[in-house]
């Protein structure tokens, strides 16, 4: 509540304008929410209701058949497990590499830091291309191994810049000097002092890398051949996008039912695959915002 003196009465034009803004934002929210609500509603409706188009906003004939179908699909379960392993492994590697690279670049008297900055910024400007990158992975013998998922995208320049900015602003040079006076080595300082002070930035980096890995399919598609290694997103692609809807040789009623169920399962599958991201979303939202702000500070 501001004092009466401070407020100048809003003109009627301004009130109209403000109303328009509220309408615009409300419409935007509806447009963004509708597909999400629809997918969730369809996923917990009966197969017949979805196929016949009865579901348009709220669930019709509540049923969990779609979810049962998803959890009975061994490919999906395997993909889910693979994706969890890839995400954990990749995130650990990526955060580790990012921290040990970004921390030195944040130190004031670290000789060569501008060289290293240019060294990584060049990689943002010049891109070798898909095929040369593929050939490198091939030459290293990583094709069709989990390493092809864990290593080639293990560092992102943007994340390095974010981490460097954080270390630069929150680990004062005096602290480093004091620790050196006490005879603490750089690595011990990094491990025992910097890391505990950097929990927020570690969370930002981990979330960014984890969401990236959980959601990516393309590297898996070009580097992996063995189905046992496929991450969830690749299984999703097979089931949701590539797979044709043709049924096997069953009688027509049975076939129709199978098809309805397969159709319904797609909705449930979308929901199931998004659950891990949904769980971390409340934290992720906060930390992603923080990360974006750190990155935009000109270093």
């Amino acid at each position, binding site marked *: 509540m501001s004092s009466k003196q401070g407020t100048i009465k809003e003109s009627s034009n301004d009130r109209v304008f403000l109303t328009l803004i509220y309408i615009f934002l409300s419409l935007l929210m509806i447009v963004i929410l509708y597909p999400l609500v629809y997918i969730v509603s369809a996923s917990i409706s009966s197969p017949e209701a979805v196929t016949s188009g009865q579901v348009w906003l709220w669930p019709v004939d509540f049923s969990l058949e779609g979810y049962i179908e998803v959890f009975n699909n061994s490919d999906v379960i395997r993909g889910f497990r693979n994706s969890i392993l890839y995400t954990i492994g990749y995130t650990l590697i990526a955060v580790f590499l990012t921290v040990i690279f970004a921390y030195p670049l944040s130190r004031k008297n670290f000789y060569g830091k501008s060289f290293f900055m240019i060294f990584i910024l060049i990689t943002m400007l010049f*891109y070798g291309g898909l095929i040369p990158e593929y*050939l490198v992975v091939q030459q290293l013998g990583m094709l069709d191994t989990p390493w092809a998922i864990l290593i080639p995208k293990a560092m992102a320049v943007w994340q390095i810049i974010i981490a460097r900015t954080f270390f630069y602003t929150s680990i004062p040079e005096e602290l480093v000097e004091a620790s050196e006076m006490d005879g603490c080595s750089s690595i011990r300082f990094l491990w025992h002092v910097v890391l505990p002070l950097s929990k927020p930035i570690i969370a930002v980096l981990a979330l960014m890398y984890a969401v990236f890995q959980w959601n990516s399919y393309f590297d898996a598609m070009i580097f992996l051949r063995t189905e046992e290694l496929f991450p969830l997103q690749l299984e999703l692609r097979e089931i949701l996008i590539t797979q044709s809807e043709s049924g096997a040789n069953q009688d027509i009623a049975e076939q129709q039912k199978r098809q309805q169920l397969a159709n319904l399962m797609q909705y449930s599958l979308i929901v199931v695959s*998004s659950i891990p991201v949904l769980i971390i979303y409340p934290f992720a939202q906060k930390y992603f915002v923080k990360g974006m702000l750190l990155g935009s500070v000109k270093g």
Partner: protein
Amino acid sequence: MDQSLDQSKEIKKVTQRHLAKRSFQRHWQLYILMILPVLYFIIFKYVPMLGAVIAFKDYNVVQGIIESPWVGWKHFENFFNNPVAWDLIKNTLFLSLYQLAVTFPLPILLALALNEIRDGIFKRSVQMFTYAPYFISTVVIVSMIILMLSPRSGIINTLMEAVGLDAVNFLGQASMFRDIFVWSDAWQITGYSAIIYLAALAGVDKQQYEAAKIDGASRLQKIWNVDIPAIMPTIVIILILSVGNLMAIGFEKVYLLQNPLNLGTSEILQTYVYKMGIINADFSFATAVGLFNSIINLILLIIVNEIAKKVSGNGLW
């Protein structure tokens, strides 16, 4: 004069060497730690840059990158002599320009609108729900598009039939591909992209708002004269970055949305590179096409950066 200049240069050199030596002594453990990340960049970023020379060679697995014979501009000539080339370039440019025209201004509008309303449940809900789609994977977004636009059981066609319209096979029409791609992208990233502008708006000096109020400025005038100038530097930087990425746009999503019926507009340079290179194993030719794409990107980035520097006084470098 010359002598003193030489002297100062000499002093600078000596201090440089001195600084380097001190830094190495003091931080040697950090330099050792950095070996691994540096190797990462060399192997996965710099080696592919050099590997791009196979665009000028006839690469074969037996001879490898170095031994394979040079063929000059052969692959580039083959590409440009193929009538497909111009379709690909056209498709790529149209799709990216359309995307830029939609997804660049929308977040600015959203941020300016959000900045006008008071903090509260409504504002926080708008922010929470508009960010959410950003976290959904490309595969899932494309699946949602396919499910909802399906001519047989999709909700959009069901609703259209309910009001008496004919069902449309949206994804089967080349003419609709760009709209579907661009607007679904806007749906996914507008909220997230607005964050950076909101941050810039939060940094506006409150006194400027007071001054505008005292001058009797309307909300619209305040947006125009205070808000927009305040976020201009951010707008310019984001624009430069977007143009720099113009030809590298959403390729993973384009590939998933493709089907034989919409290839006429959905085949872009990068999907072509993937098909020629990884699927057909025509490595040299695909690299040449990819290289052409990257170079166009780089040129665009440099041009836009120069224009931005001239017009607004700030650029990326």
